[in-house]
Structures are given as C-alpha cells and as structure tokens.
C-alpha cells in the first residue's frame, strides 16, 4: 500500500478553542499549518461552553490577576501548579482583549466595555466579597469564541483537514514526534501528515461516563494517542461533575444561572447550599455544590417522583434578565426538561463534565514526561493544549470560566512556542517505515471480520462501569472492582469485530477507534483514583474524607506500559509572587 503523504511545518490535531487559537498564531506567522479535525471545526465541543471566560478586567468590580490567581489555586484544592496559574491569570487579560479585537460579540456594559458576570469560586481581595470576572457573550460564550477563531483562521488561510480522524502519532527511536497518521472519514483512506511539530488539542473524554454533558465526539483521542506513544497522563482521577446538568439527560445548565442570581432548592423548598457553604452559597466551587446535591438526594430530600434530583430556581430573576442574559438555557430547558425557567424551576443533577487531568505539559504547551524528582523531560516535537492537556492549572477542581481561559491562553502560548521552536528546528526529521507500519497496524486491526462482540455493546458496558465505579463518591472497594472490570473490558476489546467493512464515511470504524481510546483513558482514571488515598477537590472518598497535604500534595502520573503509576511534586512556587500555602478550603 502506498500511503498518501502531506508535509507541514506544524500539525494541529483538534479544532476547538485551543487548536484554533494555536493555528491562528502560526498562520499569522506565515507558517504552513494543517489543522486536522474529525468534525467540521465549528462542531468542536468548545461551541457548547456557555458561561464565559475569566479575566480580571475589572469592568464591573475592582479586580486584579493576583486575586484571580488566589481563587484558582484555592479552587484547585492547592494541587494546581502555581507558576502555570500565575501565567494563565496574567495572560487572561491580553487574551480576552485579543479575542474581542478578533470579533467575539461579547455582551456589553453601559459604558461599552465587556460584560462580566459572577461565577462560582470567585472573590475579591483573596477570599473577600464575590467578584465578577467572567466575560460573557450572553450564555453562548463558547459558541461566540469558537466561531470567531474559525473565522479568523479563514482569514489567515489556515489549511483545514475537516473530517479527518487522528489515528496515531508517529515517533522515531529518540521518542521525537514526527507527525501523525490520519484517516479521511469520507473516503476511508489513510493520510500520513509529516510535521516538524505536532500539537494535540483534542479536548476531553467525557464520553467515558454514561451521563455526561460532553458531546459524542469527546472520546479523549489525543490523550490515548499520547499514552500509546509512551507519554503518561497526569491527575486523571480528577474528573469534574458539573452540579447542574438537566436531570436524567446531562445537558448543561451554566453556572452563569447561579451567577445571575439563580439558586438550588430541595423538595422542601429549602435553599440547601446555605448549609454547605454559608458564605458563597450556590456559588461555591463546583465540587462542593455537586457533592451537596448528591448528599441531598441520598438523604431523601430529592425532588420529583423518584426523588432523584434537585431544582434550580430562576423565575424570581424576571423575564427580562432571563431573556437577555440566559436565552440559551431557557431554550435548552424548554426542549430537554419541558420547563420554562421563567415560570418553573429546572430539574438538575450533577453530570460528568470536565477532565482536570491530561497530557502533562509545561506552560509553553510542550509535552513533558515528569519524573519523581520534579525534573521534566521534553518530548521533542510534541505539544498539547486545552482539555486534553494538564499544565496543571486546575489541579483537583476547575473553576467555572477557567476552561475557556485555559484553552485560549495555552493554545496561544503553544502556538508562540512552536513558532520559536521552528526557528531552531527548520527541517523535518526522517521517518522510518517501521514507525509508519506500527501506526497503520492500528487501522488494519479493524479489518478482521467474523463473529465477535459489537463496538456498541462493549462501549455501553464500559461507560456504565465507569459511571458506577469512578463517579462522584469513591471508596476503595468500589474502585478496586472498577479497575478489575476495566481491565477485563480491555481484554475483551480484542474480540470486538466490525461488521461494516465499507470505506466511505464508515462511522462504525471511527467509533471502534474511539472505543479503544476511551478504554485507555478509562484505565488511567480508575487506577489513578484508586491509588489516591485522600479527598481533594473533585476526588471525594468516603473512606479517606480529609485532604492529606503531607502525603498527597503531588500529581499522579499514569503510564500505559505496565499500568504504572508515578508521582510528581506540585509546583508551589509562582513566577513572581509569594506562594499561596495550602489552607482549609471553605466557601
């Protein structure tokens, strides 16, 4: 088989906010950049982000990046690296202005400045009064940003490979990444893309769980590709459950609803967050609110015929605010929950939402393999940004409004660093046939036909196992069983057969490749979770209820080879300011 090949200065896999912001930097610098995306770029999941992007612009209340940094460190339950967090909070401000200059239709204040709303976990003056730091375009901020970035990439004439699936990274003996094997979905033909640098920006993998706010496409492809290329994944046990998904369906109701003044009630009509977080109440950090909701339901104070959810009350805000600031969630509530939030409260329950962990990178987006002594070894030619990466700025729990910020700041930083790096490495490295064959084998494996388990069957089973064994509350027993079950499913994967062997737009083949990816990252999640014997941020254990800063103020690092776990110290030293030492986290 002769493999079609293309050559570019830079290859970006994934066309969400991180990928497109990096591509924009590169294309503006007149480099040849290829963006590979398994869906048309504006279908990427950044489009679903609702609430907004954090930046201390101080348009509404007094604010500065240092307060933002404090909130982020505290929100991370002190597991975030403080150098990266300082970088992100500082960069937030120029990043948002740049977005605005690029055309994002932000909502506006009367003085013409960008509208900023209150979001969970935000404070003024290091834990003081509520801040308003989240820049919003109504409740469609992700949509507005993604479309704008795509539009700017059209202007910059970025080369897009739409509906191409990233199959496998190609690496040489030194471990340097030389590009990737992709699959053109429309024709079913493989295409080898050689690149001097490769950026993974493939987003999260919420599809590991059965009930999720994540799109069908969020299958952690980049993380799994990295794992198979010998790169570990960091802090995978930290999976955020967003407190307010539409009950039973998982679609998200933005935290912005509570930011605008909405609040949660149980079946007695009690505003129960006052008990769990007396100060911040409904705007406490997401892990806190999610656990509160699950506790209310567990203790029999849930609403509805099955007492399996709580209610989000909004109607007191009035028709005007709802129409102006929350038009999208009103539409979603009507369609998916059958309620108009201007009249009735919305039934909500936590939904799997966001991966704090991912491919370890430095703050320039370069992928690094961490060692226990705190040193880091750069993987030549490989970058990662966005939800698939772990810088780590979110630590054990991400604050609302910091995910759009993460993808934009680090997408941009990765783009800049790639530009610098290409100056020193102007040539393509040679690619060996053996390396290519290894990647192609991943495709040919699915050409085996005959009797076997179906992709659907295994996928359904796997997602159920993950939900049952790595959900909001985690005990040793439940998770140990989970590890065994995922291992068994991983074995079963060998017996999965594809019934449909046709070439043209074969979505079954894509789902098979995605299933392999899901199981790889599922394993990283359950193993990392089982081993972390403390409760921190989103990782909550009834058998180890306290945070343990003596033994566990460190990042978990999972390697696929031998299912090995390693640990790396948290970077507690910021770039220019004083360290925020760990403190009890109360809201």
């Amino acid at each position, binding site marked *: 088989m002769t493999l079609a090949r293309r050559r570019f200065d830079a290859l970006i896999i994934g066309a969400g906010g991180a990928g497109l912001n990096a591509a924009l930097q590169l294309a503006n610098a007149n480099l040849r950049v290829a963006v590979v995306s398994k*869906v048309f770029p504006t279908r990427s999941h950044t*489009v679903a982000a609702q609430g907004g992007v954090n930046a201390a612009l101080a348009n509404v209340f007094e604010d500065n990046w240092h307060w933002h940094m404090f909130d982020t460190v505290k929100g991370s339950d002190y597991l975030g690296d403080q150098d990266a967090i300082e970088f992100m909070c500082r960069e937030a401000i120029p990043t948002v*202005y740049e977005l605005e200059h690029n055309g994002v239709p932000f909502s506006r204040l009367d*003085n013409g400045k960008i509208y900023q709303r209150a979001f969970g976990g935000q404070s003024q003056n290091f834990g003081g009064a509520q801040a308003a730091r989240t820049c919003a375009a109504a409740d469609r901020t992700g949509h507005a940003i993604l479309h704008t970035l795509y*539009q700017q990439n059209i202007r910059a004439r970025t080369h897009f490979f739409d509906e191409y699936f990233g199959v496998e990274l190609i690496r040489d003996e030194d471990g340097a990444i030389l590009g990737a094997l992709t699959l053109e979905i429309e024709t079913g033909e493989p295409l080898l893309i050689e690149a001097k640098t490769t950026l993974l920006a493939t987003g999260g993998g919420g599809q590991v769980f059965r009930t999720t706010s994540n799109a069908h496409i969020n299958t952690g492809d980049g993380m799994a590709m990295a794992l198979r290329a010998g790169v570990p994944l960091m802090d995978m046990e930290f999976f955020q459950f967003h407190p307010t998904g539409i009950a039973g369906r998982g679609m998200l109701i933005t935290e912005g609803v509570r930011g605008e003044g909405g609040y949660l009630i149980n079946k007695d009509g009690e505003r129960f967050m006052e008990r769990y977080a007396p100060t911040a109440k409904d705007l406490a950090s997401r892990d806190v609110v999610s656990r509160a909701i699950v506790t209310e339901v567990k203790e029999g104070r849930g609403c509805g015929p099955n007492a399996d959810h709580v209610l989000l009350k909004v109607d007191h805000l009035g028709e005007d605010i709802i129409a102006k600031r929350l038009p999208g969630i009103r539409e979603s509530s009507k369609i*998916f929950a059958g309620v108009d939030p201007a009249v009735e409260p919305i039934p909500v329950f936590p939904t799997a939402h966001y991966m704090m962990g991912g491919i370890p990178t430095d703050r320039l987006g370069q992928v690094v393999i961490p060692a226990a002594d705190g040193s880091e070894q750069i993987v030549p030619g490989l970058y990662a940004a966005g939800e698939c990466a772990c810088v780590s700025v979110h630590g054990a729990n991400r604050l609302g409004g910091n995910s759009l910020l993460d993808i934009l700041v680090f997408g941009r930083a990765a783009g800049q660093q790639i530009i610098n790096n290409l100056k020193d490495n102007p040539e393509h490295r040679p690619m060996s046939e053996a390396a290519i064959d290894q990647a192609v084998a991943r495709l040919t494996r699915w050409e085996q036909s005959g009797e076997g388990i179906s992709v659907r069957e295994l996928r359904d089973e796997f997602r159920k196992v993950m939900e049952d064994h790595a959900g909001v509350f985690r005990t040793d027993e439940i998770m140990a069983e989970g590890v065994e079950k995922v291992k068994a499913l991983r074995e079963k994967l060998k017996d999965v057969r594809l019934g449909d062997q046709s070439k043209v737009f074969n*979505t079954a083949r894509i789902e098979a490749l995605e299933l392999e990816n899901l199981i790889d990252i599922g394993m990283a999640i359950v193993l990392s979770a089982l081993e972390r014997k403390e409760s921190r941020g989103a990782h909550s254990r009834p058998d180890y209820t306290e945070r343990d800063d003596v033994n566990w103020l460190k990042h978990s690092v999972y390697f696929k080879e031998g299912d090995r776990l390693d640990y790396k110290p948290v970077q507690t030293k910021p770039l220019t300011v004083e360290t925020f030492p760990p403190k009890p986290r109360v809201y």
Partner: protein
Amino acid sequence: MKFFVYRYNPDVDTAPHMQEYDVEVTRGMMLRDALMEIKRQDEAFAFRHSCGEGVCGSDAVNVNGANLLGCTTPVSELKEPVNVRPLPGRPVIRDLVVDMSQFYQQYRAVKPYLIHKDALPEQEILQSPEDRDKLDGLYECIMCGCCSTACPSFWWNPDKFHGPQALLQAWRFLADSRDQATEERLDALEGPYKLFRCHTIMNCVESCPKSLNPTKAIGKIKELMLRHSI
C-alpha cells in the same frame, strides 16, 4: 414507532432506498436518540451528530419534508411513519451524510470575520449595549445548513448564490459597529447572483432551528446597499 430512513452506501448500493426501522419510543426521546437506536440495530447506518443539545449543528436532516436538527426534535412531535432523508439538494456521501463543501465555500466567500482598520486600543474596542443588541439573532448561527438547503434559490444556483446562511453572516459583520469594511462588503455582494437570487421565499426562516431570520437580514443588506448607492 416506524421510521423510514434513506439509505445509500456507495460501496455496496447501486441506488438509494428507504429502509424501515422500528424504534421503541422512550420518554423525552429526541430524533437523534432514535437515530442512535437505529444505529444500534444497524451498525452500517451513517449520520453525523455530536453535542446532542442543538449547538454544534451536526445533525441537520430532512424529516417528513422539513429540515430540522435531530437532537432538538422530540419524536413525539413527528407524524408517523417518520421519513428521514438527507438535507435536500446536496450530494449524498452516504445515508444521511451529505457533502456540505459548497455551503462552507459560500460562507467563506462573504469574508465572515471582523475587519477593523483603525489602530487597535490597548483594551477592548468599545461598543454600546444598543449596538451589541444589533448582533442578536445573527451571531447565534450554528451553520447546520437547514436554511440554505431548504432554499430553492440555493438549489438552483448553489455555486453562485451565497444562500441564506452566508448572507445572514454577511449582515452579522455589516451590522457590527466595530467592523470597518462596509463598502467592500457591499461591493462584493453586487451582481445578480450572490445576494439578489433571494426571492423572499422564506423557507430559511421556517426551517431555522435557532429561530433566526435570514430573510430579514437579506432585506437589511439590500436596504443598506440602496442607501450607500444613492
């Protein structure tokens, strides 16, 4: 519930056909859920979908003659038997998957990006809430293609007429107080084809799943063009 679904796989079929499926309807089932159930029954069935909440715009299909989004259409609202076909007027790649490249090309042709010529301020470019309100009903487009593929003028001249989606976006930038390329944009829309194939049939308005109004936007472009030419 009975579904008749358009099936065509160029690898095996010589001609398209409608295939019957029976789907057990569950409470709150959306059309996308039904299509996923059909894929469960028949692995070889292909359709695009992703977010499941009407923001990514992947799963636009033609159902009982009307273009709509699978994920925001409750099956309870559909008349049985449900006929599901690919979006009309576009070349079929496989089953419900159509080739949208011409549609995307028309979008690119309207220069759908902000052009600001003055030096940029250190902070945001100011915009009054009133000016920002003018973008409502325009920027929310999810590029699902329901409108343009429901437009007879786009069926007849998809290579030359921009179509409602692209024209809505053309107006989105003309209406933006920060944009400084009004003259160029208007000049580029001149001629009998790009803009003026619109005969206000209004299928676009009828079919938009986000309740946007491309016809109104097209009217505003014509009005602005007239004002700039007299």
